[in-house]
């Protein structure tokens, strides 16, 4: 157990200004996209187009979080696709089951 200060053998590297700048830049992009979503929510008419825009922007946010924050873009291609392909399947599943729900609506009401 390290009882006092710095008797480590690990060398502390100085801060990488570029990486840190990029992290804050991505943060800014995420917050900007969220701000746009808010703006559209209160100015645009509710309808299919608005919902498609929301979902599109959310996917963009998800891409930024996965690629930049979780560093998925730096991982091996095999790992990347073994995550991506199931997610693409989920997008299809979402659309298919939304349509199913719409059908139920027609029969119920």
């Amino acid at each position, binding site marked *: *157990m*390290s009882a006092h200060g710095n008797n*480590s053998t*690990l*060398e*502390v*590297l*100085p*801060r*990488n200004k570029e*990486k*840190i700048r990029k*992290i*804050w830049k*991505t*943060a800014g992009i*995420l*917050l900007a996209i*969220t701000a746009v*979503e*808010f703006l559209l*929510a*209160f100015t645009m008419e*509710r309808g299919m187009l608005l*919902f498609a825009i*929301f*979902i599109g*922007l*959310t996917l963009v*946010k*998800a891409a930024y*979080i*996965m690629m*930049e*924050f*979780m560093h998925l873009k730096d*991982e*091996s291609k*095999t*790992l990347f696709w*073994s*995550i991506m392909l*199931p*997610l693409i399947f*989920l997008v299809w*599943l*979402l659309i298919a*089951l*939304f349509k*199913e*729900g*719409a059908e*139920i*609506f027609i029969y*119920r*009401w």
Partner: protein
Amino acid sequence: MSSTAIEINSKRGIWGGGNEPLKASYGKLMMWFFLLSDIFTFAAFLITYGSIRVSYPAFEGHVSEFVKSNEHWPIPEMIFNAFPFFHGVHLPLVFVGLMTFILIMSSVTMVLAVEAGHRNDKKDVVKWMLWTMLGGITFLSCQAWEWSHFIHGSDEGTMMTFVNTFGETVKEVVYGANLHVNEYGPAPFAQLFFFITGFHGFHVTIGVVLLFLAFYQAAVGVYERRGHYEMVEKIGLYWHFVDLVWVFVFTFYYLV
């Protein structure tokens, strides 16, 4: 980051064991695949929400004319319009916007902690982990307020015709929300709210516990002795997943 070089055993090949076929350590790989399974779980919840929601009619008419009823799905911005200490002030989606901001910021501080870990900078790791934890705890506190306000309901309530727990059809004023009936819209509106935000909040709580573990271990020098801060990175992956889920929940439940 694996600190030892791993060589491929030519006799056993890349998949024969003893190396990293996907160039990520065992722990990181397993965290990714666990997150994939949890994404499936939340995708199932959100898809369920979507297909139940579109099976109800949407409110026809302008947003400003919105009335609460169990015969159409509510417009979220007319329901989630409260802010702590501002009783009666109509602030649509402001509080949930604040919650989104807090969670995204905590994700940013998490990435900064991981970046500090790559440089073996113990002080910075501990600092950024602390900020991330504070962000998570603040988010959970906000969610707790949101739940309690949702359950308690508005001052005026809503006159509704519904089937009560005794099986009788009644017409009375409903206040707040429970799993049986709510003043905002059809029963599934509240049911799905509690279900989805509840599961998400549960995951955030687990995340805060993990964050505290990593914070503590970094602070007492476990990772320094180990020679790398990969645990911070793995827990960071979990925390980003929690943020990702929230981004989707926010869009699907509060915006659409």
